């Protein structure tokens, strides 16, 4: 079935190509020009096998290829691997690599490099254990065949094998013979086999990537250079993109979006970049007085009018979230208690719990802090500021503790000192990679983005462990649906909103490709073959 699908794809592509080539005036994508992106956080290097983060993912996905690419329907597509087979028991994945592909230094890409890359990522990447913990070994029967053997089924494998999660690194550059990988100078002057190669790196200022002529997709990429330039303030970024000094800008702030939309030489694409899957939540520290009572947490949820937050405070720029799994994921389920705004019910729950109002009308006090991060900080601050007067209505006195900076917030949560905090997490493609870490009772750690709430539920542990290895997608969906229901009921974290990112692109850009991780720059080109 899969083969027929692929065959039909080829036929369609063929027909379309022929049609275009006989249509007069159509010359195909134009080659040439620079593409300049704004860099808010400057990447310390480009080696995506040892670090995660979106500021690194964008250039690293240009420099390195992966075995597969995930399309917007969550299906794996060929990239370095031209085809693959999966054994019936789901424990053996055989990948056939494209032949004749080379790294930027001219050396061939072989299955040995694939095996090396997987080992390196497993050992060094922050999500390594989640992504490749199930991998037993990688066999390389010949130069162009890589066989991944699993200890147990691992449905998230294909996503973990895509960029930016597992870059194909040349072993002769990053291998153990070259010393410890964290100190390898090629982390900066990276050598991959992606569409662009590193030409210049000026720490903290700018980087320049140049077109790689021997890229595995003939013809691509179309830009001569892909340039990242550090930009400090959002206001100057807005001016820079309208002047064409940079060629796109991502915003999350309603006022910025309004301005972006006014610019005549830009067009705006609003996506929630499903692969990243950014969701926001209120974390409850379950060790704390009052909060450890489920009814208190539910009362807080009922007391918040999220429609008001989304429509009025965020001016319709965000979406409602109903649980830890991003709504674009196949495993998302909305069959959960959604806590429709209901002050009466909230008061009733607190009364039942036995927390009577005092003489001043207050029942008790709780601390609240929020996550200070660039681009979406205003969302977190707004929710926190909204919660104070709102929870007063049900007799909870909120002491708002504004964090000095990110590290300040981080250490509060890592020490479990908070009562409540807003936070945000990325799903990174599959719940196994991004979601499990927040709920597994085995992952209660003194680190942010682990189970800092201190939630321990054997039922949830069991469901998640089962979902991690379940190969039948329907059964896996059912497991996650049950999990989402329990979380919405227990409310260790209350999921509030999903971020939408707004990309303002220069009008002269053509053929903007989209992957689950964001724009795909390899297929993009300038209308006139050069930046305006």
């Amino acid at each position: 079935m899969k083969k027929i699908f692929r065959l039909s794809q080829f036929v369609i592509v063929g027909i379309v190509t022929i049609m275009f080539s006989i249509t007069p005036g159509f010359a195909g994508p134009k080659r040439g020009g620079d593409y300049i992106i704004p860099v808010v956080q400057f990447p310390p290097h480009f080696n995506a096998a040892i670090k995660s983060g979106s500021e690194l993912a964008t250039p690293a996905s240009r420099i390195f290829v992966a075995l597969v690419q995930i399309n917007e329907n969550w299906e794996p597509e060929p990239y370095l691997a031209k085809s693959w087979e999966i054994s019936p028991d789901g424990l053996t994945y055989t990948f056939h690599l494209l032949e004749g592909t080379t790294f930027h230094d001219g050396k061939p890409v072989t299955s040995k490099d694939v095996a090396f890359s997987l080992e390196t990522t497993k050992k060094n990447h922050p999500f390594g254990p989640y992504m490749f913990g199930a991998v037993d070994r990688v066999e390389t029967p010949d130069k162009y065949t890589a066989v991944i053997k699993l200890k147990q089924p691992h449905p998230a494998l294909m996503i973990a094998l895509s960029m930016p999660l597992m870059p194909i690194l040349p072993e002769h550059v990053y291998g153990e013979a070259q010393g410890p990988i964290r100190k390898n100078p090629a982390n900066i002057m990276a050598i991959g086999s992606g569409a662009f190669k590193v030409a210049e790196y000026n720490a903290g200022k700018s980087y320049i990537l140049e077109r790689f002529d021997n890229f595995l997709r003939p013809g691509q990429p179309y830009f001569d250079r892909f340039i990242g330039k550090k930009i400090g303030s959002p206001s100057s970024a807005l001016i820079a993109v309208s002047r064409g000094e940079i060629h796109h800008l991502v915003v999350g702030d309603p006022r910025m979006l309004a301005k972006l939309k006014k610019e005549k030489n830009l067009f705006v694409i609003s996506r929630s970049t499903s692969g990243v899957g950014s969701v926001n939540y209120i974390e409850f520290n379950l060790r704390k007085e009052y909060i450890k009572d489920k009814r208190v947490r539910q009362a807080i949820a009922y007391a918040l009018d999220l429609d008001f937050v989304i429509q009025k405070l965020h001016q319709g720029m965000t979406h409602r979230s109903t649980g830890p799994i991003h709504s674009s994921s196949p495993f998302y389920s909305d069959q959960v208690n959604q806590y429709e705004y209901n002050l009466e019910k909230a008061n009733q729950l607190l009364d039942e719990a036995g927390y009577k109002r005092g003489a001043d009308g207050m029942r008790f006090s709780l601390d609240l802090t929020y996550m200070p991060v660039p681009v979406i900080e205003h969302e977190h601050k707004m929710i926190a500021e909204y919660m104070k007067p709102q929870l007063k209505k049900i007799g909870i006195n909120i002491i708002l503790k504004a964090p000095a900076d990110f590290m300040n917030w981080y250490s509060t949560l890592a020490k479990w000192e908070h009562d409540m905090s807003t936070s945000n997490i990325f799903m990174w493609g599959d719940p196994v990679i991004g979601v499990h870490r927040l709920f597994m009772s085995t992952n209660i750690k003194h680190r942010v983005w682990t189970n800092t709430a201190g939630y321990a539920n054997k039922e949830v542990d069991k469901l998640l462990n089962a979902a991690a290895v379940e190969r039948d997608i329907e059964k896996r969906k059912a497991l996650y649906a049950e999990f989402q229901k329990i979380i919405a009921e227990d409310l260790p974290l209350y999921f509030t909103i999903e971020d939408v990112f707004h990309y303002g692109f220069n009008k002269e850009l053509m053929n903007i490709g989209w992957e689950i991780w964001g724009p795909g720059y390899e297929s993009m080109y300038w209308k006139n073959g050069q930046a305006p």
Partner: protein
Amino acid sequence: MKTILPLLKRIAYSLMLLLAVIVLNFVLVHLAPGDAVTAMVGDMGGATPELIAELRVEYGLDQNLPTQLFKYIAKMVRGDLGISFTHNLPVIDLILEHLPATILLVMTAFFMAILIGTVLGIIAAQRPNSLFNHLITVISLSGYAAPVFWTGLMLLISFSYYFPIFPSFGMETVGFRGTFLEKTFDVLKHLVLPAVTLASIYVAVYSRLARASMLDVLGSDYIRTARSKGLSEKVVVYKHALKNALLPVVTMAGLQFAQLIAGAVVVETVFSWPGIGQLAFNSILRRDQPLLLGILFLSTIMVVVTNLITDFTYRILDPRIK
């Protein structure tokens, strides 16, 4: 000997001051919650406990504070500022790479402010009650009163957006291909707005100071003598009065140089000017202790050296000072 001894004394004091600053900085930086490893882990999106422990050992953060301090000073004495945690590059290289941008910006603004400020002040002093005098007062004081980031943004919106004359950010067009002359011109174009912004605060200071001290000097006896000798007004003002009137300006300039560097942090952020200020700002956010300490150390040296220079300039301008 008479001139060398105070000089040596001053240098010795300066060295002691430097040591005190290093220790103080070190303690202050380590008092902030979270270390570089937690920052890095946050940055990476989480990490395994093994990796965290490994990183702590790698960066020497597993040792206690006095040991770390001692090792740090021992390294400093050898001229080694350490390796930046976030960039994985020697701190000295990073600083040297970002320093020219800051020096260019600060020096341009510094001399722009002194020159414009003094000239305006002197002109104003000659006609203390004219409309021109009041105009200068209003303009320079608004420049002084306005927050520097606001001035920056207003200039940015005016001359980069509505009248797109100057580029909006950075120090050069990245990947610009051209001759040396074209490249210099490119940098100059980028320099105008940040330098004017930074200078705007200090023009007021210098013009008010120059005006006041000029008025003071013009009222003194020796000027009256000069005038009664029949010297022209020009000679009286520029030859006799100016040198004395400049003394307070020089003092102030020396004192303000340190503040100028502080102001540069804000200007560099507004215009994404790739200098030390931006580097310092990011190193604070990421708890990159070696880098931050290196920058603080360097700024201390710069301030100490400027103060020394001010001291000696003073002696040249006014031989009475010993």
